[in-house]
């Protein structure tokens, strides 16, 4: 059976609009004492969710080694072409600790004016060397200043925990092989 809703005509008080105005005033008055919804920005910072996509940064592994091997996948995947890598190699003589690591970028530039924070570089990186982290506010006086160099990117990135230790494992395997083991 259809439900019949009684449509009452407006009564005398409602026709004057005054009760509605008063209830509106009550709403706004209560609003004045609510918790403020805005942040006082430079002093207060928003709580960023996990995996927030801020500025891309280069990270080091827990052994304080640059993880990037300059494969240039990020440079090629980058939609706005913000990344430019100059590949370089590691001199095993000068740096015996890292002789087993394949390569390291000679220069790594990200143009933050071009970057669109899409996160494709992070997704494509086979070495887990580039991460979009929490920096969301970048300012500079010139365009050059906002082309971030390798040192700056490494400083912003810091060290992230690593579960693979790829190069340690490679070294272990090499040592093991040299000892005549399997492999």
């Amino acid at each position: 059976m259809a439900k019949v809703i009684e449509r009452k005509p407006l009564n005398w008080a409602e026709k004057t609009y005054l009760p509605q105005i008063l209830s509106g005033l009550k709403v706004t008055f209560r609003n004045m004492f609510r918790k403020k919804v805005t942040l006082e920005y430079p002093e207060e910072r928003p709580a960023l969710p996990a995996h927030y996509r801020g500025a891309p940064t280069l990270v080091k592994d827990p052994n304080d080694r640059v993880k990037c091997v300059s494969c240039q996948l990020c440079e090629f995947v980058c939609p706005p072409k913000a990344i430019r890598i100059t590949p370089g190699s590691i001199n095993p003589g000068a740096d015996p600790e890292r002789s087993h690591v394949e390569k390291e970028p000679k220069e790594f530039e990200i143009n933050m004016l071009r970057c669109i924070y899409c996160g494709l570089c992070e997704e494509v990186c086979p070495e887990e060397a580039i991460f979009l982290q929490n920096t969301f506010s970048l300012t500079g006086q010139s365009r050059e200043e906002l082309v971030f160099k390798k040192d700056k990117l490494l400083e912003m990135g810091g060290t992230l925990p690593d579960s693979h230790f790829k190069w340690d494992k490679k070294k272990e395997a090499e040592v093991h092989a040299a000892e005549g083991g399997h492999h």
Partner: protein
Amino acid sequence: MIEAILLKALFALIVIGVLMGLCAYSVLAERKVSSWIQGRVGPNRTALPFVAAIPIVGPMLQRMGIFQPIADGAKFLFKEEPVPGHVNKFYFFLAPILSIVPALLTVVVLPFGEYYTAAGEACPIVLANLDIGILFVFAVSSLGVYGIIIAGWASNSKYPLYGSIRASAQMISYELAMGLSVLPVFLWANAPQSDAGLNLFSVVSAQEDIWFIFWQPISALLFLVALFAETNRLPFDMPESETELVGGFHTEYGGFKFGLFFVAEYAHMIIGSAVFTILFLGGWNFLPGLGDLWPHNVLGAIISVVWFMAKVAMLLFLFLWVRWTLPRFRYDQVMNLGWSVLLPLAIANLLFYTLLIAFIERA
């Protein structure tokens, strides 16, 4: 004689200074109240170098935005003042002056406190205690619309013209209801054998026992609604209607000339609140039914002024509160409300109280 004139001039300067200060701080109040209602914090950054350095008090004042009006005013002074090429220069410059002068002029007849002479006679604290007080207020405050009309006309552009046409239509429509709504108040204040006339001080004296807002609530409501319309505040801000008419009548104005319009709007609001307080909220009388409580000396005079200002501040808050609650009426609805609701209601109200007072006096 010279001394009396100088004293009066000094007094006038103080009153104008206080009024302008109140205007500046009602702009701050507007910004703060709107922020609170919208869940924001409001202006809290402006700081004067030395004052803000005082421990505890300085930062507290800064949080309250106390220094913000100084920055706002200075901004208007130092901004570029564009004068568009297509305007009528003479009237374009005249309009802001015409709009602020009547707003500041009405304060002359407003009593804002009372003191007792050595002979024990009650006197108002007022610049000029005119017998035709309320008439003067109505006559001069409605001159303010000339500023708006001339601004719209001289701007020689469509939106300001629309704004000023709406302003004049609205002003004419609501002036009638406003005038009629206060007549019962004066009918009651002019009891037999009293020479109250249209004097504002005697209206307050007549409210020592009962405030007129309780005795004549319909008059008070009509006056309040008309007051919102006369001061061009939301929900009746037809002349500005920033969502429809760009900036309304002041679209072509910038810099200090716009600042004058801005101050005039707030001065109108303050004076409107003061008139409402005098007519309906018992002026400086403490609370309804308590009679004349303040001591008959200098302290009593100061308390009466402060109490009066407190009531005005409450009404100003009501103005701001309503502005950030209600949306704007449509133009034709405003006209409809003015002519076919408020005006008949005001006439009926006047008739009712005329008959009632006649009946009471006969009895």
